[in-house]
């Protein structure tokens, strides 16, 4: 209802576009959103898609043949074996470490955590290097191992060790902050009610950390199966014997057998996707109030 003030000052007849104090104008939001999505598509989605496309470039028949090829099967078996050893061992370690760190107070905790994080912050090639220095021909142990016919480097044990090294922190890194956040009150309550250590652990702690544990194990496994640099150093690249799946991918690629390389790679990519899917699902459940969420 337009009307003029007695002093004849200008009045606003129509409401202008509302500008919120805490968000950008619509055009800026749209542009930023599109730019961000385009960037993510280019950097992340495109490589993922190209793995799948290249894997099936010569058709589904060739895809399956590449996977059934004896060397490929050997690589898959070796990868599974290595993971089957490394993951449970690091799982037990992760549980022990997070129990000690989260439920007790002692000096030197920060230092301990730094040590645990070490493999996470060094180059994978260096992770392999340390084992060469330890067990290689020129090391102190080298001659002794040779004399006793024990093969560590350029054989499966070396690969297992290097994999254990690089995947060492994964379970612990997931569990430690989770358990620290959950505190000690429930365990102490269980103790006062007469439970022993094992009962407390299995019936009070474990249920609280089960989703963090699952995710830590999945990450640990994904890394164990996908580790390339460290294993590359210690494996010797002997086809059919000491090549894991990532190494096999490298061999195929270097032989210009691209479709087969991508076929094997696609399995690993699917594993990565599975890990992400599980994480997203867990997050959706978490945000509906299952234990461990600290956002409010």
């Amino acid at each position, binding site marked *: 209802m337009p009307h003029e*003030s*007695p*002093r004849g*000052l*200008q*009045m*606003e007849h129509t*409401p*202008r576009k*509302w*500008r919120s*104090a805490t968000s950008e104008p619509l055009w800026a939001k749209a542009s930023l959103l599109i730019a961000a999505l385009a960037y993510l598509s280019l950097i992340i989605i495109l490589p993922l898609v190209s793995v799948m496309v290249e894997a099936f470039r010569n058709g589904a028949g060739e895809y399956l043949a590449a996977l059934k090829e004896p060397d490929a099967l050997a690589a898959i078996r070796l990868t599974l074996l290595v993971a089957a050893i490394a993951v449970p061992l690091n799982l037990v370690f992760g549980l022990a470490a997070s129990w000690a760190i989260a439920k007790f107070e002692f000096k030197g905790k920060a230092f301990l955590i730094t040590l645990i994080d070490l493999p996470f912050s060094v180059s994978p090639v260096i992770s392999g290097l340390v084992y060469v220095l330890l067990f290689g021909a020129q090391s102190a142990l080298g001659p002794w191992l040779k004399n006793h016919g024990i093969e560590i480097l350029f054989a499966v044990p070396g690969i297992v060790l290097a994999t254990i090294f690089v995947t060492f922190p994964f379970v612990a890194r997931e569990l430690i902050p989770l358990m620290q956040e959950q505190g000690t009150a429930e365990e102490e309550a269980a103790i006062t009610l007469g439970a022993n250590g094992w009962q407390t652990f299995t019936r009070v702690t474990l249920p609280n950390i089960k989703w963090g544990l699952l995710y830590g194990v999945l990450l640990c496994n994904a890394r164990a199966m996908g580790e390339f640099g460290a294993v590359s150093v210690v494996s010797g690249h002997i086809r059919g014997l000491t090549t894991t799946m990532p190494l096999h991918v490298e061999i195929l690629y270097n032989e210009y057998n691209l479709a087969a390389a991508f076929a094997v790679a696609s399995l690993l990519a699917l594993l990565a996707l599975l890990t992400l899917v599980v994480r997203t699902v867990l997050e959706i459940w978490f945000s509906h109030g299952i234990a461990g969420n600290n956002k409010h």
Partner: protein
Amino acid sequence: MEIRIEKIRKEFDRYPALHEVSLGIKSGELIALLGPSGSGKTTLLRLVAGLERPTTGRIFFGDADASWTPVQERNVGFVFQSYALFRHMTVLDNIAFGLTVRPKATRPPKLEIRRRALELLDMVHLTGLEKRYPNQLSGGQRQRVALARAMAIEPRVLLLDEPFGALDAKVRKELRKWLREFHDRTGHTTIFVTHDQEEALELADRVVVMSQGKIEQIGSSDDVYDRPNSPFVFSFIGDSVNLPVSMAHGDVQFAGQALGLQHSEDGTGQMFFRPRDVTLVSEGPGITGKVTTSRRLAGARIVELDVGTARAPNLIEIEVPLDARAERGSEVRFRPTRWKVFAGQ
């Protein structure tokens, strides 16, 4: 700058926070929006600031309709409950911020900005602290920096959201006095929001009592304290007692007994009075009750009476002189001297 709020209605996702509120604020006035949480007082303040937009209704700054002017252009000085100081800037940079973001045309030169900021720092009695960071200041000091920052842009109106809420009692008292004196010195139109009635009554020229998105009463401190015009205001401001009464032939009756008080309308209603506005009577019309507890409070005695029946006890508190006879279990009879009946409640 006078401010006129015209039939403002604000809904958040269908939830009505304000129902057709209208209010006129005089230039240079220090006015308080007082009410419990959920009363809509902070929403109203934010609407004046431009941090929210009205669902319907209009806000006038002087003669100009500012309802849809963006907050950046309204030139209001807003002091947040949590101060919202810029943590990574020094005190001086915080205060100077409003001046440094002005477009080149209206921005003063750097030296001038610094001079003005230091002047404001002086005005809030924090000279010497310009290089400190917010987390190196006490709560009261941060509060004053927030005020100086808001003042730096020479706002048309100052808006304070629960300015003393986060401070402890002693600091609160000091700052209250300081704010009143500051206002008298500078003469800005100021609106502040509080749930603390003592604060509102002490500081404000006028008090706007709000409840559940509506304005219950507007008036001076004396007005809202001595002449509350609704049950809510009567019970929210100061202590009060309320009893269900019925009126017949002009006489007010409680529990079937005439009280010797007159009221124009007939029917039922609520009678409100303050605990100290009573006189003890030994005979004649009045309210009787049995003393359940009695306690001493400074220069008077507070007595809790049961004015109901054995099956339906009704406990109220009144203030009696120190020398009155009011032992536990004794019967006391009293009559309110100042009271108000709200019919039809």
